[in-house]
């Protein structure tokens, strides 16, 4: 019971930003997120895979934007009033990901996240666990693995990415 007093003041590591791609809920650690913006005007990238939407200018910094839905096999993301871009700071790069809607900030401790869920049907979807809130299921997304960032930052010019 002593522990419960600790869990009430939430640590920032336990907070996630919840967003939607089509009808699924996803979460990424709040600490990895720099900001959330509307869909910017982008410039296409020569020779890039289709899920690269383009590059944008974020206050002087040129950042690649990725259509996460397309990458995860859910098809091209149509722009609506709710469509947003989350600027994610991964260990090696800063990228933007397009999502259908940003929902809320959720708190999920290690205890409430279920690991090793094997209901993973999508090829590129890499998750760190599942957070259940009543009926709703939020997949805690591992961005670096889902986008193969390791392969991307070590790519050689002209190589084809899958």
């Amino acid at each position, binding site marked *: 019971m002593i522990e419960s007093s600790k869990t009430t003041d939430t640590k920032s590591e336990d907070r996630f930003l919840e967003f939607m791609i089509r009808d699924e809920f996803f979460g990424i650690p709040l600490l990895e997120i720099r900001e959330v913006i509307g869909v910017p005007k982008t*410039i296409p990238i020569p020779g890039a895979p289709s899920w690269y939407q383009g590059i944008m200018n974020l206050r*002087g910094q040129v950042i690649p934007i990725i259509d996460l839905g397309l990458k995860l096999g859910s098809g091209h993301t149509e722009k609506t009033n709710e469509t947003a871009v989350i600027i994610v700071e991964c260990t090696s790069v800063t990228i933007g990901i397009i999502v259908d809607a940003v929902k809320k900030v959720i708190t999920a401790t290690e205890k409430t996240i279920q690991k090793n869920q094997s209901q993973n049907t999508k090829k590129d979807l890499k998750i760190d666990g599942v957070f259940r809130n009543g009926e709703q299921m939020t997949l805690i997304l591992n961005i670096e693995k889902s986008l193969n960032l390791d392969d991307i*930052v070590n790519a050689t010019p002209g190589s084809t990415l899958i």
Partner: protein
Amino acid sequence: MADSYEEIIRQTFLEEAEQSLADIEQCIIEIDRYSSRKKIYPSEISSNFANLFRLVHNLKGSSAGVGFSKVSDLSHILETFLTTIKNENFQISGETCDFILECNDFFRKMIVKISQNPDSQFDLKYFDNKAEQQLSSMKTNIPSDNKTEQKKEPVAEITEQKKEPVAEITEQKKESVTEIAEQKKEPVTEIYNDNKLSGEQTVMTEPSSSTAPVQEREQLTKDESIRVRMYQIEQLNNYVGEMVVMQTVLNQQKTELNQELLSKVIPQMDKTVKEIQNLSLGLRMIPISQLFTKIQRVCRDTSRAVGKEVELTLEGEQTEVDKTIIEKISDPLVHMVRNSIDHGLESKEERLRIGKEPIGHVTLRCYHDGGHVIIEVSDDGAGLNKKLIEEKAIKNKLIPENHNLREDDILNLIFHGGFSTKDTATDVSGRGVGMDVVLTNIQSLSGEIDIATHPGKGSTFKISVPLSLAVIDGVVANVNTNRYILPMSQVFESVKISPEDLDKASGVGTIFNLRGKNIPVIFAHEILSEKSSSKEFYTAVIIRKHGFEPYAVLVDEILKQQQIVVKPISKALKFTRSLIGTAILGDGLPAFIIDLFDVSQYVKGLAKS
């Protein structure tokens, strides 16, 4: 907390040590330069010796302070070595300098190892023994004939005079250090008092001329600069670049706004913004002197290795150059200076035979010329042997026997990989890897290299690179609906052509006729994976890349020419081809910068020249 504090001071030490070692090296090279000449410059030697002593002593103190005992042990060995030389009035020979340089190199190695792993261990026995050997050989080598004695006398005297105070200060500093050590448990303020006291004493008891400047200088350099992380400067440049873009928008709007106050403020603001931009871009610039010091060392080592006496002259050491350029140009320059000494200069005997001064001269010159930095390496040696280069190239099948190359083109053959006129490879040069690397490095900086050579009189290699990598002159061009930037330095000329001017030749792809010459072309949309679309007119951008026949890249039209702030390409876009970077255009949208030289690999039917 204690850990992180310790870490911080260790980090600071490691950063500062680099500078100290560079300074130490500079001192030894100066001493070596002055003492190896016929005419001896006693005051220069002794002032450098005093500096050297002070630097080594400081290194000893600061390394002990952060607990890098091996660094301080080696400093101690070196310090004792120097003290003995001073006390016994030994003459400093080339071997002495070699030994000190060897120590300095080992310091560098230790610093690198320690920064990777603070607990690295080193064996210093070698240096201990070698110091002993050196000292004893110097003892036996004290010459007895009058001639040398006379020459040596003044050195000794002045050295004595000048060095006395240094030694005393050192003594006192040491005292205060031991005092501090003894009073470790006392409150901090007292330690400061002690320090101050001993400092005051120094000034009072030693108001002599040579101590004051040393201290003043130390004070000055501490006030003059602060360390800033490169990352912060890049960030600053990013934001300033953004500000410039917004300012441009304001400028365009000011006539429409029709507001008196705004129309006054905007032009003023414009000036200020430009000033800020110049300043912030200037932060990346550092004097080239740092690199020149390194070259001095290379020159010394090379001239010894090949047994030629060389006098190196440096000009324009204070010329400011972008830090990245200095880093990238360092290896090529080292290589070129080595080449000048090994290939360029004749041997001493040969020089005497043909009536030249026995000492060879190599000059390094750095200056600004318009938007470019020029670095010249010249020697007064034999000059490049065109005939030999031609023969070698034919022998190595680089060119056919019945070639009709111009003289310049023959000279440029030395930039081919695997080309060397030396028959045997030495430590110094002759492996034929080098000049091609030099060229690649310089081209990667959007630079050029020119050779001027006069048989019997020497050669000059002239490197020209843009003043700053952060800002380039760019051509904004349209391909379909997107804009791309072409580096001005890669564009030779541009011509407007209609599709009828294009011909398809079998096997070589598309060509067009420019003033009677067939030039292979590639459509920009092909390399940029843009859709093709038929146009009424194209603009052919003609490119002359070194070692290739001219080729052309077809864009839809050229929009304008402007200064471009280059931003490195995101790591997430490494797979892209033929792109050097990105930039933000006047309307705030980003655009890619195309590497037109890299495009050559996709041009069908492109012949090497």
